C-alpha cells in the first residue's frame, strides 16, 4: 500500500514538473520531450489505478502518434517560438483567470451532483468484477459483441475519412521522378553497360 502511494506521488510530481517545463522550456524540441515524459507518467498513474487499458492507449496514441506529430511540426516547420512566446506574461492573468474558473466548475461538478432516482435504477452497465477479468478483456467483450454495430460503423466512418483525404488532396504531378521498382529490377546489363574498346595510348 505504502509502495503504491510512493509510486503515485513520484508519478504525480514528475507530471507536474514536466508540465511546467513543457510551457517554460526555451527549446521547443525539449518541450515536446517533456510532454512525452508527462504522458508516460500519466500512464503510470493509470496502471496504479488498475486501468491498464487506458495506460496502453495513452502510450500508443499520445506518445506514439500525437507527440511524434508534434515533433514533426516542430522540426519541419520553421516556427519562431521565441516570437510566439512574447507577451507570455502579459496573457498570464487572463490564463490564470480561465484556470480558476475551470477549477471552480470542477468543484461544482463534484459537489453538486444530482442523481435522478429513476435514472439510477436503469443506469450502470454491469461492471465485471475487476479481480476476475482485466479491463482490456472486459472492453473487448463489450465492443466486439454488444457494440459490434457501432464498432463496424466507426470503421466505415474512418474509411470515408481516408477516401475523402485522398480524393481531395492526391494529385497526379507530371515530371516527378518516382521510383519504379519493376523498371529497376527489369533492367538488363545491355541497357546500362557499354563496352568500349580502348586502344592503348589514346585514352578514351
Amino acid at each position, binding site marked *: 500500500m505504502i509502495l503504491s502511494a510512493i509510486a503515485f506521488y513520484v508519478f504525480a510530481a514528475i507530471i507536474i514538473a514536466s508540465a511546467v517545463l513543457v510551457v517554460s522550456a526555451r527549446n521547443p524540441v525539449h518541450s515536446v520531450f517533456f510532454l512525452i515524459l508527462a504522458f508516460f507518467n500519466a500512464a503510470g498513474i493509470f496502471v496504479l489505478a488498475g486501468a491498464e487499458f487506458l495506460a496502453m492507449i495513452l502510450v500508443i496514441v499520445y506518445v506514439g502518434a500525437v507527440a511524434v506529430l508534434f515533433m514533426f511540426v516542430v522540426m519541419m516547420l520553421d516556427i519562431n517560438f521565441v516570437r510566439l512566446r512574447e507577451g507570455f506574461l502579459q496573457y498570464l492573468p487572463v490564463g490564470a483567470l480561465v484556470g480558476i474558473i475551470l477549477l471552480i466548475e470542477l468543484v461544482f461538478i463534484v459537489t453538486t451532483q444530482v442523481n435522478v432516482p429513476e435514472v439510477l435504477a*436503469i*443506469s450502470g452497465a454491469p461492471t465485471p468484477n475487476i479481480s476476475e477479468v482485466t479491463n482490456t478483456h472486459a472492453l473487448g467483450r463489450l465492443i466486439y*459483441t454488444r457494440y459490434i454495430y457501432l464498432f463496424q460503423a466507426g470503421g466505415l466512418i474512418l*474509411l470515408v475519412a481516408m477516401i475523402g483525404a485522398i480524393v481531395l488532396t492526391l494529385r497526379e504531378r507530371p515530371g516527378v521522378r518516382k521510383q519504379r521498382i519493376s523498371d529497376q529490377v527489369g533492367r538488363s546489363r545491355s541497357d546500362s553497360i557499354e563496352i568500349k574498346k580502348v586502344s592503348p595510348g589514346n585514352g578514351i
Partner: protein
Amino acid sequence: MPQAPVPDILPALPEIWLAVAAMLLLMVGAFRGNASTRMVSWLAVVAVAIAFVLVLSGSKETGTTFAGMFVVDSFSTFAKELILVGTAATLVMSMDYIRREGMERFEFPVLILLATIGMMMMVSANDLISLYVGIELQSLALYVIAAFKRDTLKSTEAGLKYFVLGALSSGMLLYGASLIYGFTGSTNFEAIGALYTQAGQEPSIGLIVGLVFLISGLAFKVSAVPFHMWTPDVYEGASTPATAFFAIAPKVAAMTLLVRVLIAPFFGAVDDWQQIITLIAILSMGYGAFAALRQANIKRLMAYSSIGHMGFALVGLAAGTEQGVQSVLIYLLIYLVMNIGAFAAILTMRVKGQMVEGIDDLAGLGRNNPMLALVLAILFFSLAGIPPLAGFFGKFYVFLAAIDAQLYTLAVLGVLSSVVGAYYYLRIIKVMYFDEPAESFERPIGREMTLILGASTLFTAFFVVFPGPFLAWTQQAAAALLP
C-alpha cells in the same frame, strides 16, 4: 464466463450488403483506375437495386437487433426505399455530368454509396449512439462530395462551409444527447420512452434542454430555419449532381430521423416539442418563400425551395398524430420524386458544352425545346402545389393533419406562404414560355435523363389517379411508429 450471443444480422442485411458492395467497388476502382468510373457507377446502381430488393423482402415485423440499437419496421422500410430510389436516380444522373466536367473519379459513386449506408443507419437508429454514428457517416461523405470538384473555388468553399457548420451542428446534437443520457440514464429510445410514460410525471427540465439541443442538431440536417444558413451556399457551390443528391436523399433521411426521435422516445413530451416544431415550420415556410423571390440562380432557388418544403413537412410532424406522421411520409415521397425530376432538368441545362445555372438561361425554352419545357412546367406547378398535381396532395395532407390537431394558425400561415412561394415557381414557367428565346440547350439529353424525367413527371402528373397504394403504405408505416 458466459459466451456473448451473436447478434442477429439479418435485419441489417441491406446495410451490410451496401457496405460490402462499396468496399468491393472501391477495390475495382483502385485497380482499374479512373477509366472505370462509368462501370463503377453502373455497378453502384445495381448494388442499390439489390439493396432495394433486400429491404423490400425483409421482415415486415417490427424488430430490433444489435442490443436494441437497430430497428426495422414499416416506417424504416418505407424511408429506406425512398432513400435508395433517390440514390439510384442521383447516380444515374451524375454519370454524364462527371465525365463532361472532368471530375470523373471512381470515388464519387463509392462515396455516394457510403453516404447512403449512413442514411439507412439513421432511419434505423433506435439509440442515441447509433443515431449519431449514422449521421456522421452520412455527413462526412457528403462534405467530401460537396468539395469533390476540388479545382474550383466555389466547390471547395461549399465543402468547407458545410464541414464547419456541420461540425457545429454535430456538437449541438452530441451535447443534447449527453444531457438526455444524463437525465434518463439510457441512450436507448425504448428506455427513454418508457421513462416518459411512467406514472405521468413531468419530464425534468434537463431532459427538455437536451431535447431542444437534439432538435437543433437535427433541424440543421434538414436545413430548417434558423439552421438553414449553409443551404444556399452549399447548394450553389457544389457540383450539380452533388446538389441534387443533397436535396433528395439526405433530406428524407434526416426528416424521418427527426420524426422517429420525436415520436418514438419523446412522444410523452409532445406538448413540449410541438411548439418548437411549429415555430421552426412557420419560419422555414416563410423564409423559403420570401428569400427565393429574388434569386437568379436556379440552384440557389432550389435550395430555398427545399428549405420551404422541409417547413411544410414539419407542419405534419407538428401535429404529432398518426395522421401527421403519415402526411410527412407522403410529403417526403412526393418531394423526392419532384426534386429528382427538377434536378434532372437542371442537369440538362447546357449551352455550348458549358453548364448554365441562371433562370434567364431558361428563357424561351417553350419554343426551343417544347417537351423539356412541358416537363419542367409540370414539375414546377407541382412544386408550387397546384392541383391536381402531386405536390398539391403533399401539402393537402399535411395541412389536413395540422387542422385535425387544431393547429389553425400553423395551417393558415402555411397556406399563405405556399401562395407566396407559388410566385417564384410560376416566374420560371413565365420565363420559359413568354420571354424572348435565349440560346437553346444542347441536345440530345441522353436516354437515362429522358427516362428519369419521364418517370418523375408521370408520377407527378398522375398521382391523383392512383394515390391508394401510397396512402395505404404510408398509413402502415406511420402506424408502426406510434405506440
